[in-house]
C-alpha cells in the first residue's frame, strides 16, 4: 500500500552512515570521486611536426587504395561521385580485398594487414609530445613534454598516428574518431576515479583509485556525464587499481608506476590496458580535474579499434589500416615477446577529463558509499 517500503529506510540509513567513510584508503581523511568524462589519445599538433606532410585525406587515400586494387581512374572517379552507392559498395570490397595471399589469391587487407606491403605512413618527427618518460631513460622516447619540459618522453602511439589528419590537432581540439565514438557510445562502461588524501586542498600524498561502474551513466544535452550522479562500483577486482601519487601546487602526479586495466567499448577501445602507468592531473578546479595518463599499452588492442570498423576508418577517417598495423609493430617499445622479440606494447599518453561523481559499492543488495566532499 502506498509507496512505502521499509527496506528503503535501511538503504538510506546505510548510505547516510557511510557518507563519512573514505574510499580507497581507510586512513584517508577525504575522498573525492569522479567519472571519466573524456578520454582520448593525447595529441600535440605543432609546427614542423610532420615534415613529410600529412597522410592523404580520405578521398585521396581511397583513390590510392583503389588504384592499388587495379581500378581505372575513370572507375575511381565514378565511385567517388555522389549517388554512386553501388560503385561505392564495390569500392569498399575492392579496398578490403586489395591484399594477396602467398599463393597470389586476393586477401583482405583489413583482416590480414600483412597481405599488403607496408605503405610507410607518415609519422611525427617533431620535438614535442604530451606524455611521460615511462622507462626512466632520457635518451629514449625522444620527445619533450610541452607542459612540463620533461625530456625522454615516450609516446610512440602519438608518433605513429599524429600525421593523420584526424589526429593532427591539439587541445582544445580532440582526435576526431576517438572523440566522436566516445560521444556516441552509450554502451561504454563507466570508468571511475577516486582521489584520497588527508587534505586534498593542500600539498600532500594521495591515493588514486580506478574502478569500473556496474552501469552506464546519465549524460546531459552536451554529451557530458551529469555531474554528481551516483555510480555503483563493479565488484570485479580485475578492474580495481590503486596508484600512489602526490599533489603539489594544484597538480596531482603519479610517478610511481601503476598498472591499469579497464573494460571499454569495442567501438572506442576494447579495453584500456596500461603498465608502468603515470598520471598528471590539474586539480586546481576540483569540479573539473583534467590531465593525462600514460603507460605502455598493447598496440594490437589499439589497432583493433580501427580494424573492427575498417571500411569507415579508411574511407572516412583516412587512416590506413595496414599502415597503422605495420607502424605500431615497428614503433612498439615495450614488452618483447620472448620467442620473437617483437615488442607487444607501445608507449602512449591519453587525455583524461573528470566530472565529480559519487560512488557506492554493492554487495548482496546492501550499499555503502563514498561521497565526494566537494567544496562548491
Amino acid at each position, binding site marked *: *500500500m*502506498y*509507496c*512505502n*517500503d521499509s527496506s*528503503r*529506510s535501511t*538503504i*538510506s*540509513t546505510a*548510505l*547516510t552512515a557511510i*557518507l563519512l567513510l573514505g574510499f580507497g584508503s581507510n586512513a584517508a581523511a577525504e575522498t573525492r570521486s569522479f567519472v571519466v568524462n573524456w578520454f582520448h589519445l593525447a595529441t600535440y599538433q605543432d609546427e614542423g611536426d610532420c615534415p613529410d606532410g600529412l597522410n592523404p585525406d580520405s578521398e585521396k587515400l581511397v583513390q590510392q587504395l583503389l588504384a592499388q586494387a587495379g581500378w581505372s581512374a575513370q572507375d575511381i572517379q565514378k565511385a567517388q561521385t555522389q549517388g554512386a552507392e553501388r560503385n561505392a559498395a564495390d569500392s569498399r570490397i575492392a579496398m578490403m580485398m586489395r591484399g594477396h595471399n602467398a599463393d597470389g589469391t586476393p586477401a583482405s587487407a583489413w583482416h590480414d594487414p600483412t597481405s599488403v606491403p607496408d605503405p610507410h605512413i607518415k609519422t611525427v618527427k617533431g620535438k614535442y609530445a604530451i606524455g611521460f618518460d615511462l622507462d626512466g631513460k632520457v635518451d629514449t622516447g625522444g620527445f619533450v613534454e610541452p607542459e612540463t619540459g620533461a625530456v625522454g618522453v615516450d609516446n610512440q602511439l602519438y608518433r605513429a598516428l599524429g600525421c593523420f589528419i584526424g589526429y593532427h590537432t591539439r587541445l582544445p581540439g580532440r582526435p576526431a574518431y576517438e572523440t566522436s565514438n566516445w560521444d556516441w557510445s552509450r554502451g561504454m562502461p563507466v570508468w571511475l576515479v577516486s582521489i584520497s588524501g588527508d587534505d586534498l586542498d593542500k600539498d600532500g600524498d594521495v591515493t588514486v583509485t580506478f574502478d569500473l561502474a*556496474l*552501469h552506464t551513466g*546519465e549524460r*546531459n*544535452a*552536451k554529451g*557530458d556525464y*551529469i*555531474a*554528481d*550522479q*551516483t*555510480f*555503483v562500483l563493479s565488484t570485479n577486482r580485475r578492474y580495481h587499481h590503486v596508484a600512489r601519487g602526490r599533489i603539489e601546487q594544484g597538480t596531482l602526479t603519479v610517478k610511481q608506476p601503476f598498472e591499469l586495466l579497464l573494460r571499454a567499448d569495442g567501438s572506442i577501445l576494447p579495453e584500456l590496458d596500461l603498465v608502468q602507468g603515470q598520471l598528471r592531473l590539474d586539480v586546481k578546479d576540483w569540479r573539473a580535474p583534467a590531465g593525462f595518463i600514460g603507460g605502455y599499452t598493447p598496440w594490437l588492442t589499439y589497432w583493433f579499434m580501427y580494424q573492427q570498423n575498417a571500411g569507415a576508418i579508411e574511407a572516412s577517417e583516412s587512416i590506413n589500416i595496414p599502415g597503422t598495423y605495420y607502424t605500431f609493430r615497428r614503433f612498439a617499445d615495450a614488452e618483447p615477446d620472448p620467442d620473437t622479440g617483437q615488442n607487444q606494447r607501445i608507449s602512449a599518453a591519453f587525455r583524461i577529463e573528470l566530472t565529480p561523481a*559519487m*560512488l*557506492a559499492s*554493492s554487495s548482496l*543488495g546492501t*550499499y555503502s*558509499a563514498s*561521497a*565526494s566532499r*566537494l567544496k*562548491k
Partner: protein
Amino acid sequence: MSKNRKSRVVIVAVAILGVAIAATVFFFAPASSEKNRSLSGSAKMADASLRRLTDTQYRQIILDVLGPTIRVNGVVEPGVREAGLIEVGSRRASVSASGMAQFHALAKDIAEQATSETNRNTIISCVPKAVDAWDAQCGEQFLSQVGRLLFRRSLGPAESQAIFAIAEKSATASKDFYKGVGEGLSSLLIAPQFLFRWEIPQVARDGTLSLDALSKASRLSFFLWNSGPDLLLLEAAESGALDTRSGLREQVDRMLESPRLEAGTRAFFIDMFQFDHFHELVKDAQIYPKFSAQVINDAEEQTLRTVVDHLLVRQLDYRDLFTTRRTFLTPVLGAIYRVPTPSDKSIGMDRRWISYEFDADDPRPGILMQTSFVTLHSHPGRSSPTLRGKALREIFLCQKVPDPPANVSFTEFNESQNSEVLRTTRKRLEAHATAPACAGCHRLTDPIGLAMEVADSDGSFRTEENGVAIDTTGNFEGTVFSDAAGLAEAIRNNPVLPSCLVNRVYSYGTGRAVTSADRSAQATLSDSFAKNGYKLRSLLREIALDDEFYRVPPTKSSNLMTVQAKATKQ
C-alpha cells in the same frame, strides 16, 4: 494555410462541435433515475452546477473503470486556477471546440483499446454469441455497467436506448460486435454526463439546500479518490444509506482506508502545489546542464512521495512537511542534491527510487527546499527570491501578493547583473526595491525568498553567488532566521499554515472558494485539525462527515442550467 484547407478545418471544427452539442442535447433527455430525485420548489431555484473533469480525474476514472492496460494518449484541455486551485476553476471551465475534438479523439482511442483483441476479454465481462453481429444482451450489459460508473449513476432509459442504438447500428454496419461496443463506449466518453460532474441540489431535512445522494457520492469520491464513486458508494447513495449519519460514516471510513486515497491525496497536492506548471517548465541547458525532462518528472514525484509517505503512510503532522529531512530520491535527483543515490536499477533490479534522510545539519529541510518548489518558482536562467517568496505566501499561506504594476522597471535589476558591486541577487533586489512602487511587495516576498537562495534555479545547492557567500538571513513575520532551515521552522510554526491547508482542502472538495460566510466553519475545522495533531486523514474525515460540505449555497442565476429549467424539461 490555403483557403480551401482553412475552410476544411473550420468545417471539421464546426462538425465536431455540432456532434458535441447534438450529443449534449441528446443526452440531456432526463434520466428516470434523475426523475426520482425530488425537487422541491426552493430547489428549483437553485443551480445544478457542473464541474468539468480535470486531466487527473479523467485519467483516474479511465484507470479505475477500464483498468491499467488502457492508456490515455493525450492531455485534457487545461483548467483555470481560481482561489489557488484548478478544482475551484473547474466550475467555470467549459469545453472549447478544440477541447471537444480532443475529448472526441481520446474517447475513440480509449474505446479502440478497450475493445481490441488484447484487452476485450479482460474488460468486457461477457462473451457475445457471435463477433460479427450485435449481441444485445452482452453489449447492453457491458455498456450499462460501464455507463453507470462513468456517469456516476445508472443510465436512464432514454440514455440507455440512445447508447444501445448507436452501438447496435455500428455493429450491424461493420458486422463487428466489438466495433459496436466501442462506438457505444466512445459515446459515453464524450457525453456531458461523463465530462462534467453534475451537482444536483435537494432540500435537506433542515430545509436548507444540500446535494442529492448521488451528487454527494460523487463529491465524496472526487474529494477522497479523485475519481468517480465505486459500486459500493453508488449503492449506498441509491439506497439512501448515504443520507444517514451512520451510512455516510461507514462510507467515509471505508474510503479513507482504501489504497485509492493515495491517488486522491496526490491529486489534491498536485493542484495545491500548482504542479501543472511543470508542463511549461524550462531551464537554460547551458547554465544548468544537470536539468532535464527526467529531473522535472522526478522532482514532482519526489514531493508527492514525500507527502504521501509523511501524511498517509506515517500519518504525521502536516506542519512537519516543511521541516522533514526524510524524502525519496532517484539518481538524477541525487546529482542535483549531490547526495549518493545508488538505485536498484544499478544492480539490475527494477527500482529507481530510494528513501533518503538529509543530515540534521543539512540546510535543505522540508518540501520548500525540494527541487519541485525551487525550480518551479525560478527563472529559466537564474533563481528568483521574489517568485519563491510570492509562491510560498500564495500556495502555503493562502495570502495574495499583488501583481507588479504595469509600468514596473527592471532596469536597475537587469543592468546590475554584471555589476562588480551588486554580485548577489540580494544586493540587486535591494537596489531594485529602492523604487517605492516596488518596495511594498518585495518586502513581502524577498526576505523569505532570499533564504532559499542556496538552491539555484535547477535546485542544486550552492553557498556562493559570483564568488560572494550567499546571505540567507531574514525575518518572517517577526521570526528571525539565519538560513532556509530557520525559515522552514518559522513557516512550520506559523498558525496560518495549517489553516490555509484547511481552506484549500475544503475548497478543493466543494469546488468553490472559501468566503467570509464560511469563516466560522473554517475556524471549527482548523481547531479540530489542531486537536487531531494536524493529521491529514483526520481533516479529510472531519470535512467529509460535515453536513456543511454537502450544503449548496444559494446562488444567483448563472449560465449553468438551473434545476428549474431541468424540472421544466421533465
